[in-house]
């Protein structure tokens, strides 16, 4: 049971990370896994994997098995905490909703050119994507 438990934990993590790196482009992609607010498939697999590990430990104990299940719990605990807590943002809400005018601005573009926008001077629809910065 312990090898199965370890396999589930490793496979769930690997599948998640592979999907993140391939940006959801994998054929076995479970795209909603990385785009979901909480990827329950991964969280669930980690919890089940750990439960199996603890179950196997209760049946037969040894130093090695304690070590393996302990490592598994620490790793899965950190990963689940990241997915359900640490990657969450403080409460915030966009000041505009559908039907509101978009605010005026005067900002530099990537070439250093000033881009000005004011209500009424709009020229065609636009999509603004706010991101956290280059890395």
């Amino acid at each position, binding site marked *: 049971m312990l090898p199965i438990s370890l396999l589930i934990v490793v496979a769930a993590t690997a599948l998640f990370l592979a999907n993140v790196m391939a940006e959801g482009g994998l054929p076995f992609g479970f795209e909603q896994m*990385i*785009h*979901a*607010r*909480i990827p329950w498939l991964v969280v669930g697999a980690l919890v089940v994997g750990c439960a199996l590990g603890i179950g196997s430990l209760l049946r037969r104990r040894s130093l090695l098995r304690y070590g393996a299940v302990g490592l598994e719990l620490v790793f899965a605990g950190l990963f689940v905490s990241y*997915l359900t807590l640490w*990657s*969450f*943002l*403080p*409460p*915030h*809400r*966009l*000041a*505009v*909703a*559908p*039907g*509101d*005018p*978009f*605010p*005026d*601005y005067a*900002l*530099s*573009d*990537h*070439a*250093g050119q000033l*881009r000005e*926008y004011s*209500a*009424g*001077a*709009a*020229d*065609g*629809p*636009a*999509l*603004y*994507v*706010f*991101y*956290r*910065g*280059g890395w």
Partner: protein
Amino acid sequence: MTLYAVSVDPPETSAALRERLGADFTFLSDPDGTLLDALDIRHRGGRNDGADIAYPAAVLVDGQGIVRWTHQSDTYRERARPEEIFAAIEALPGAGARATP
């Protein structure tokens, strides 16, 4: 349809990112967070070094400057999906064929 990517990064950083991504859309720099404040999406101390950055968000504005669709999340892992965005563009008044990617 114009696509703007907005961050607090200075133009040079945006230009480097744009180059690296091979992107052909426009990046806007909001180092003082004026637009972020107008939209209430300044994440104070949100960057590792304690600087303010943007909360991830997407806002679709029609040709008259009216907001038609928005996307926000309470986790930085979750972003608007392409099909969601295209559907919002298709739904713009008089969008029609313009929305094809």
